[in-house]
């Protein structure tokens, strides 16, 4: 059974009285171990689609089913728990909490949720791989854009979740770091985590097991 399934997913927004369909009737499934990349022009509805998958936005119609349960029938508390433990979302832009250090940011999901804290070795393993070990006790305001990005990625991958969803995760990284991140995603996928990455960078598409294209709210399989 697919870990996550989207059925006839539609999301409409109202803009100055006109209805605008950001996500238009999408069917989509992802299995454990899948590494899916989604490309598409900006404004094609990618981020809205990801927000729907993670239950951050409610669909106008259609359903998202995670582990056999429709999000529609799941309360906020439980959806939050799923996001906390099973689905790690790396949104666009900066998403570190400014009041906490990098280390506290990476461990934050564990302080608010029920999962056991990862060991210090695991923390160092991930931070070493991402080259942020020296920055663990710094505050986000002292970090460069690329460093923040990598800290965010560390936060997502540290506990090997069921699904990682990343919205342009390598946008502010140089090519060496970009490939390093893609390798991390590929490794984690090979261990059974499903990965969805939205990207503009064609050169990274090779890491994916499936490539999809988003166009005006519709999703098409490319590879």
């Amino acid at each position, binding site marked *: 059974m697919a870990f996550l399934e989207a059925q006839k997913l539609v999301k409409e927004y109202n803009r100055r009285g006109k209805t605008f369909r*950001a996500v238009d009737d999408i069917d989509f499934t992802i299995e454990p171990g899948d590494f899916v990349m989604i490309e598409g022009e900006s404004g094609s509805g990618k*981020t*809205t689609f990801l*927000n729907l998958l*993670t239950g*951050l*936005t409610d669909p106008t119609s259609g359903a998202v089913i995670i582990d056999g349960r429709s999000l529609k029938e799941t309360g*906020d*508390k439980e959806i*939050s*728990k*799923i*996001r*906390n*433990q099973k689905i790690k*979302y790396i*949104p*666009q*832009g900066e*998403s*570190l*909490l*400014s*009041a*906490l250090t990098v280390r506290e940011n990476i461990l*934050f*999901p564990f*302080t*608010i*949720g029920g999962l056991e804290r990862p060991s210090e070795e695991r923390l160092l393993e991930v931070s070493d791989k991402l080259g942020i070990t020296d920055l663990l006790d710094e505050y986000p305001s002292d970090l460069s854009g690329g460093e923040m990005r990598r800290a965010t990625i560390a*936060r997502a991958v540290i506990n090997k979740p069921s699904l990682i969803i990343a*919205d342009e995760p390598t946008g502010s990284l140089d090519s060496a770091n970009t490939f390093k991140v893609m390798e991390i995603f590929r490794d984690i996928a090979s261990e059974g985590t499903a990965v969805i990455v939205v990207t503009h960078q064609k050169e990274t598409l090779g890491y994916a097991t499936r490539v999809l294209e988003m166009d005006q709210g519709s999703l098409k399989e490319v590879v």
Partner: protein
Amino acid sequence: MSAFNESFRFGIRNIRKRPYRSFCLVLAAVIGSYALFVGLALKASLNNGIGRMQERMGADLMIVPESSEIEARNILLTGEPEFFYMDVAVATAAAEIEGVECATSQFYFTSLSSDCCSTRVQLIAFDPDTDFVIGPWIDERVTSDVSNGSVIIGSEVTPLSNGKVKFYGNEYSVAGKLGETATGLDHSVFMSRDTMHGILNDAKDKGYQFLNPEDDGAWVSTVLLRVSDDADITAVEKEIYNRAGGIRFIETDKLISDVAVKLGSVENIINVTLTVLLVFSFLTMILFFSVIFHERKKEFAVLRILGTSSRRICFFSLTEGITIGAAGGIIGLVLGILTVFPFNHYIENSLDVPYLMPSVAAVILYGMIGVLVTTLFGSLSSFLSTLSLAHAETYYTMRTGE
């Protein structure tokens, strides 16, 4: 780590990471709590003051010389030292009227302020045999009676370091101290007629002539009357006036209702100021929290993404609100205590109405109310701001305008 602990720590971190904002918010809470505490304490002191005054005004009626009504009121209300007198015949006449239960006379004169660092005080000679207005309020500290030349002092009169008081060069031992009356009597010194004669002679030696050289025993400043319950006070006044002219009557009930009117206007000022400051405090907190949370929309989105439930986010911001409200409330309370207690006499002297601090327990209660209200302000304003965010769809999405 419990959820409460965690959100408390997170809230504190957020407060500390933004010192300027937190300072403004705490300041708003300080103003609210300070205003509430000081306002309530002042109001209670005023009501307490007039209550005590009513209770301690032993006489129903006061007879004074025709031209001295204002001076007599000053003595009673503010303790402003005055000097006036009239013929003793009034006292004898008044005592004989039907309906008069008790009558006693007093003689008012003043001390000098030249004895370094003591203000002029009202000196009052009374008649211990007929007295019914002072005696009941003398505290238990009386060590001897006033017949041997010692005096009784009002609660606000400070003796010299040797425990005595000094008038016109001579020192007098203190026989007792009156309990607080919230009237001018707190600033007065009471003595027997004999002691008065001695002081008047000392004054004369120093060049202060209070009376004509005639027999001063024949003069009184006021006659105080208690009228029986079934007697018509106006009829009594009329009867006395017929027998002795050139006098004025001060009715205690009217005096107190005059004070109540004045008190009412002071209370109004306090109420208005209090309301304005409380509204200001609350609005500032709402405004600041809304601005903060609006700016932090993205942070809330991040919290959502990381799996924080809506309830939990409300809990986080509530923690911030409660912490700020309570911290400000406590600071305001401390400032309030530093105002109300040390400057007690300063406030009393400035207000010019009876003022008597309520019990410590009552004051503590006002302090608790102040802290509670600002804590409520803090939690309410943070909660309302989070609620408005929770309803906005954009709150969940990272990109605005999507």
